[in-house]
């Protein structure tokens, strides 16, 4: 009744979970009656598993991720604006040093940013961002991307003596890592955020199912000094404060009160039970 080619399509659809229940039942009966069909299904399953195992999804290179982020980055990333027409005529950015947005991406970002600003005046939802807003916005995007991608950190460790050297090798800012496990915020890992084109250390702490990412900036970095306190950007809570040596921006999906507790604990430093911080 069903021709052989159609059976093959059905078996493929069945192992992909795409066959409707009635057809699936009918196919099961046919497979039970025909060992050749059963063998075909086993082979297809083995093939599919092998493809998934040997051809996994690859992580996009960091440089690409940064360039894409720069396409819609806040204006702090862009020093000078160019007219939009130039964007499509610039050559592609091969051959540049990796890790930085290429000239074309920046030009596009610049042209969009300029137009966006021109139009943003008078719109309540489009504040003209100052540089600290831009930094916070970029870090919120980082946080959202990291959460959605399921890769909240580049180095996973609850040991700050592992995280600190990892970050030290990749950033120019000496990270201030506070052990807050006793306060209910165990360290989960670290990653590098790019702020104003400078790689900066970001610490990721957990709290139950939630995360908070603390990015540490030199006090003189552009946009480092914003108003202190907690605000909401795109649904995430953002806290900023400054210490004697560094400015901090914490982005979190925790509620505002818990984030405030975290910030207070972070500012107090390690609990007496924790080992003293190394000089």
């Amino acid at each position, binding site marked *: 009744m069903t021709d052989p080619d159609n059976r093959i399509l059905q078996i*493929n659809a069945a192992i992909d979970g795409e066959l409707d229940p009635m057809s699936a039942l009918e196919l099961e009966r046919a497979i039970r009656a025909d060992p050749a069909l059963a063998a075909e299904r086993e082979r*297809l399953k*083995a*093939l599919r598993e092998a493809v998934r195992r040997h051809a996994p999804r690859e992580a996009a290179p960091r440089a690409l991720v940064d360039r894409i982020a720069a*396409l*819609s980055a806040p204006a702090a990333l862009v020093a000078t604006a160019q007219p939009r027409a130039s964007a499509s005529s610039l050559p592609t950015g*091969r051959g540049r040093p990796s890790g930085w947005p290429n000239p074309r991406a920046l030009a596009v970002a610049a042209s969009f940013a300029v137009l*966006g600003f021109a139009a943003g005046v008078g719109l309540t939802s489009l504040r003209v961002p100052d540089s600290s807003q831009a930094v916070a916005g970029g870090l919120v995007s980082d946080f959202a991307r990291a959460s959605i*991608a399921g890769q909240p950190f580049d180095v996973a460790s609850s040991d700050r003596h592992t995280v600190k050297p990892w970050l030290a090798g990749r950033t120019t800012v000496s990270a201030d890592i506070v052990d807050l496990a006793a306060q209910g915020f165990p360290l989960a890992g670290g990653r590098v955020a790019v702020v104003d084109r400078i790689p900066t250390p970001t610490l990721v702490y957990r709290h139950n199912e939630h995360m908070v990412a603390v990015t540490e900036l030199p006090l003189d970095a552009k946009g480092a000094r914003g108003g202190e306190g907690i605000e909401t950007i795109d649904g995430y809570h953002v806290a900023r404060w400054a210490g004697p040596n560094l400015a901090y921006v914490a982005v979190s999906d925790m509620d505002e009160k818990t984030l405030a507790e975290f910030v207070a604990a972070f500012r107090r430093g390690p609990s007496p039970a924790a080992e003293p911080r190394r000089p």
Partner: protein
Amino acid sequence: MTNGVAEALAHRRFREIVPPLLDDAYTLAKWLCRNGADAEDIVQEAAIRALRALETTAVDVPKPWFLSIVRNAAFTWMARNRPKATTSVGDLADLDALDARLGEGSPDPEQLLIALQDGERLKRAIADLPAPLMETLVMRDVNGLSYRDIAQATEAPIGTVMSRLARARAALAKTLKADR
């Protein structure tokens, strides 16, 4: 003014939609052009197109939407930079001649199972598939799109998607059994 509002909106949508899809986009592009550095350029080009499109488009299902842009950017890129490698219409017609059955003419199913252990060989076999079969297979088994999403991303009817997927898998099995 209106233009600027649309762009600001596009940026907001872009930041929500595109960054989480970059791994999928990069992987797909890399399969389509077979080169990591070129794949980066393709994804970047796709992102620029996506940003423009988002000025006028709201997207319900981001993944097939963006992967469709990546795919089209890859084809444009291939046509421009590697015209000889670009799929011709003839390839599509030839597909009909491909058998969708894996088992036919295979006295030794063990041979396939052994061949499947060799990841490099399997990847070569995938890379050698005709483009329409390869993109369908990659979108399904690597990107994890549903048949319906693949149909949307490749602008093909769902029946065509099913048939291409079956043929892709059959062709893979055949290649793996043939070469050694």
